[in-house]
């Protein structure tokens, strides 16, 4: 190839301070989840037709396309579907201690949530390992009420 780039063309900078958007969301499922977390419980929604349990729960089953609202409690133990190891923070700076983060399918749920697994060496993390949730002392009804997971 003999292509040579031409001279730089004129460049003007555009700043786009994007307008405020007002998204309408149905927060029923996530509200149910964080409210239950205040009691150190994890609740989702079950489809009465196919039995799928969603955490957080949607308002309709995405397999059967029907409205659903049956509240069920799921376990605080579960299985690791996949994991990664954070070796840098979100800004790219190296972290002192590597952190294992995992997609965890809780017992009784068909869906996964993301959590940190503490107390193991990162090289010992495995797909399929069993883990248990540990709660913060004073849950406030927030996703961070689950402090961490540990291997069982």
């Amino acid at each position, binding site marked *: 190839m003999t292509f040579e780039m031409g001279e730089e063309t004129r460049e003007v900078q555009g700043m786009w301070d994007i307008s405020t958007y007002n998204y309408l*969301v149905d927060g029923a499922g996530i509200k149910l989840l964080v409210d239950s977390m205040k009691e150190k419980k994890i609740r989702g929604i079950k489809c009465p037709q196919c039995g799928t349990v969603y955490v957080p729960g*949607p308002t309709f089953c995405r397999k059967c396309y029907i409205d659903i609202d049956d509240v069920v409690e799921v376990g605080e133990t579960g299985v690791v579907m996949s994991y990664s190891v*954070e*070796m840098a*923070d979100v800004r790219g700076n190296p972290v002192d201690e590597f952190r294992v983060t995992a997609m965890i399918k809780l017992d009784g*749920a068909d869906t996964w949530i993301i959590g940190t697994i503490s107390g193991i060496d990162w090289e010992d993390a495995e797909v399929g390992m069993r883990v248990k949730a540990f709660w913060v002392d004073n849950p*406030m009804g927030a996703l961070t009420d689950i*402090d961490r997971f540990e291997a069982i």
Partner: protein
Amino acid sequence: MRNVGIIGVGYTPVFVSKRKDVNIAEMVSEAVDAAYRNTKLTPDDIEAITFGNMQTFEGVNMPHLWAVDHMRALNKPYMRIATGGTTGMSTLHSAYYHVASGLHDVVMAITWEKQSEGDSQVGLSGIVMPEAMVMVQHGMDLFGGKGMGAMGGGSTGAAAYQATSYLHHSGASPEHIDKMAALERSNAALNPYAHLRKKTSVADIQATPFISWPLRFGHTCPTSDGATVVILASEDKVEKLADSVAWINGVGCACSDPATGNFIEGQITDPAEQEPAKLASAKAYAMAGIKDPAKEIDMAEMYNGFAHQSLMWLEKLRLCKEGEAHKMLDAGALNIDGELPTNASGGVFSTNAIGASAMNRPAECALQIMRKIEGGHQIPKKIKNAVSHGWGGMFQYVTVTVLGDEPRHG
């Protein structure tokens, strides 16, 4: 339904990080003109145009309309397609539908990205903004220690979970990702239209830092500026207009529930499951009359923003058994002169002008079939059937195009 052939491909002269010498319209028109030059057609021959790039990435809306004259598209049917990472192939499929339906005989598909003019991360963030805002309101810990940062980190964070799951279920090792990365980067070194063109060893890849284990910096694609244009013609017109042709013999696409993104309603799908790839390829193979893809397909161009994905897709597209792709890699079968040359072009992993990335896959297959590859990555054996693949959306949308040296029968 009529048979449709690709009769010409046009690339921008280079795919690079920053084309500072041309603006968007000027850059894309380079590829449009290249397609005309390569086919000896003129704008008068083209009946309709499809156009694709990513939404938001350059911070502009409706680029197809404000650049209509640069696209030589005045006074013609003209539509924009945007399906995420698959945009390029969806734009090709749209052009294919135009011709196969009998509505038009000769159609141009234009795809591009000029990532240096925008902010890809903003484009990606916009996909999940409402969900992310709800999660933050309920305590999602993007920057802290609760493990949620990985999902906030864009594609690599989410792809890391896919890679770990794939390695576990396939029996491949992280070193196989290094090896696939080195192979594709070395292929790209032979391709004048690739972006990262440096012969690369496994040791070179292993010298790059981990971003999110098991993915290293050397396992990830670049951001590129570039455009790819393809001209399609009906079977009646091919003979009259073209000196060579690659036939589009099968198309398929499918979508599963989001494997990442829609956090506020629990997600079922494992990001390495990729059921849509199985559905879309089954549809495309059936249409093309391919019964045993592992035997009948001569080459593959897979969409791989990350190096583990080439191996994963070969299995999902039934080009080998599940868990066999890394063994084919070890046996040299995926090399340019191997049994199933895979990403001879260097793949998305070496060149990623996103809107064009899923178009470059079938475009490369077409050029391989027509034996019009420039540079050193022409596959030596004769290509009868080739499969190309696009991937994107919320980790769950897949497009597949099967191409052949002869039109499909029946």
